[in-house]
């Protein structure tokens, strides 16, 4: 209880004084950052600051002289491999580029002389752990595979399945799961992701989007002919991005849906965010248009809301945690603001990369000291180093008392340290009933163990009082009768 009062006081203090804090922070970032907790939104200090823009132009050193190469033109998908190298599907240049985090061109795919390696408006890219590069070669209706040196090695065409007979195979995103199965988001395919086995056979659809029917549509459905239905009633919303994390969870984003804009499928194909409305932004009619999704090592989800021009961070359970970003004003390019952002990825150091069709480049965002501390605390916690995680979390709380996850981590650490009463206080602060219940269970059983004789005496005394009381009442009734 004491802690709760202290927190309330701090909240007021931060709201009153803290705005100067956010004010100074926003000098380096041209947008505001927000935190979320239990359906509440509050401003927080900067989480990410714009670091640089890369890929807008490339240079190649040939015969000792520097030569300028065309920069990105209409970049779409983005991928970051284990060595923090960046791959971009450069759609309008019909190529895929690989660059380092400084924006130096390392490799160019799809521009070679080999006919089979030529790409046509590629929109999706995935790099497997052995370095093979999978390109969703949208214009050529195939998935092209290159090795780590950029040599064409294979291609996957539309599998000859009855289910796909009426589909024109235009893959826009591709990813590969732990077993080597390909998951493909294709244009105009509403049945879900197309799954292709390692031997290039069609293995089924994965996680279909439901068709959302309004009340009017239902009435139309009753009276319209098949012909009319096809033109009048909208189909299912389409998948815009897809990501598979190291544990095998499949994440998708969907455009044009009123709920479940972000989905997290477990291995059984069940959406863990089922029924949730993941739209948080309210600044535009297009808000909730998620075009990109990625997941960091701690399971935190980063989703890019292109309609609102904001990046949202969700925790592994789909609860919103942070957001930042804003749209360009009057389409004047300014580093850090979004024009037409498409895809988002995070590298091993927590830097965020966003492709932007209006910038024709990739924007890089650096995590602030606060954000780095948050990530470190989480990483320590996930690796089971509770004591260090607690120390880091307390450090985090010094710069932001609102960050509920820090309280949660401290609560868990105290629980592990058998300090149950203290951990209950932390869980109470962040309304975590499950953690609180566990701690209380321990507290209760230890109390009973330590006061065993007291408990027995109370039980015996209660039994005695009940017995004697009953007798007295019975005797009195006997008198009255």
């Amino acid at each position, binding site marked *: 209880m004491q802690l709760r009062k202290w927190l309330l006081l701090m909240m007021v203090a931060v709201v009153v004084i803290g705005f100067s804090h956010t004010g100074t922070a926003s000098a380096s970032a041209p947008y505001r950052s927000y935190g979320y907790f239990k359906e509440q939104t509050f401003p927080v200090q900067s989480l990410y600051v714009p670091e640089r823009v890369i890929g807008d132009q490339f240079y190649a050193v040939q015969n000792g002289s520097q030569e300028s190469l065309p920069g990105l033109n209409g970049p779409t998908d983005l991928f970051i491999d284990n060595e923090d190298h960046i791959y971009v599907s450069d759609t309008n240049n019909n190529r895929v580029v690989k660059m380092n985090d400084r924006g130096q061109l390392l490799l160019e795919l799809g521009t070679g002389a080999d006919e089979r390696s030529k790409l046509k408006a590629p929109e999706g890219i995935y790099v497997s752990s052995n370095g093979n590069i999978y390109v969703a070669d949208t214009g050529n209706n195939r998935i092209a595979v290159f090795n780590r040196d950029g040599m064409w090695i294979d291609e996957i065409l539309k599998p000859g399945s009855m289910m796909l007979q009426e589909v024109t195979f235009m893959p826009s995103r591709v990813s590969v799961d732990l077993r080597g199965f390909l998951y493909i988001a294709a244009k105009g395919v509403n049945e879900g992701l197309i799954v292709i086995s390692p031997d290039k056979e069609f293995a089924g659809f994965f996680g279909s989007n439901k068709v959302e029917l309004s009340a009017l549509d239902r009435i139309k459905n009753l009276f319209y002919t098949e012909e009319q239905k096809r033109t009048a009633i909208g189909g299912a919303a389409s998948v815009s991005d897809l990501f598979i994390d190291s544990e095998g969870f499949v994440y998708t984003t969907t455009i044009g849906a009123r709920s479940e804009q972000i989905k997290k499928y477990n291995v059984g194909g069940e959406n863990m965010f089922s029924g949730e409305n993941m739209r948080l932004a309210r600044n535009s009619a297009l808000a909730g248009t998620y075009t990109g999704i990625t997941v960091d090592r701690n399971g935190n989800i980063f989703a890019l809301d292109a309609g609102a021009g904001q990046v949202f961070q969700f925790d592994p359970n789909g609860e919103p945690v942070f957001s930042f970003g804003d749209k360009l004003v009057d389409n004047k390019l300014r580093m850090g603001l979004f024009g037409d952002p498409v895809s988002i990825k995070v590298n091993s150091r927590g830097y965020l990369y966003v492709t932007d069709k209006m910038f024709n480049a990739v924007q890089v965002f650096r995590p602030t000291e606060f954000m780095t501390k948050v990530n470190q605390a989480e990483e320590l916690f996930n690796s089971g180093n509770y004591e260090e995680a607690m120390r880091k979390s307390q450090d985090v709380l010094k710069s932001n008392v609102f960050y509920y996850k820090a309280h949660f981590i401290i609560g868990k650490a105290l629980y592990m340290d058998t300090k149950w009463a203290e951990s209950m206080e932390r869980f*109470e602060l962040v*309304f975590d*009933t*499950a953690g*609180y*219940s*566990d701690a*209380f*269970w321990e507290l*209760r059983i230890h109390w009973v163990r330590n006061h065993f004789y007291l408990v027995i005496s109370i039980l015996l005394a209660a039994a005695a009082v009940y017995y004697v009381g009953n007798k007295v009442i019975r005797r009195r009734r006997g008198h009255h009768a």
Partner: protein
Amino acid sequence: MRRLGEQIAYTWTFLRHPIDGFYDLRFSGKGSVASASVLLVLFFIAHLLRLEWTHFVFNPYRLLGTSVGRELLTTLLPVLIWVLANYLVSCITKGQGTFRAVYISAAYSLSPAIYFYIPIAIVSNLFTNAEASIYYFLTFVVNAWMLVLFYLQVKEVHGYEIGETIVNILWMLFAMVAIIAFAIALFAIVIQSVNFAVSFFREALGYV
């Protein structure tokens, strides 16, 4: 004052003998409008204290998650609408109860909550998630008990047969929905006409 105290204390006898209780409330002066009103207030207080005192595990937000006005709208107002609907329907279907009798009996039917909401809330402080089913079962028993009392209320106060009672209860529930819908419509019309009158006179007087 002493009489009022006795009437409120009668709830204890009422709980053990509800069928006789409904008769005595009406014909033996065991309850009055005043005692019924006190019981309604006690019921509301018991409800609020339950929210505040229930263990964190079962109700983490306590009273923070709500407001007195909202609780009034969701607990006491439905009871009052029930009384009105009950009386109106019984007028048509030849029930014997007066409005006074319906009001008093409805208030007394809430007595399980008055007696047991607070003890259950206090006992819940010993429970963890592992014993959640016990807590929910206890709450269920009290609520089911009240539902049975409301059934008996309709039957005994109006002197219906069992079949009649069930049909009447369905009509009363329908009447409640109708009353709420009517009230909302009336509310909207009043607001609209006030707005209209205000803007009309503003324009007429040239303020715009």
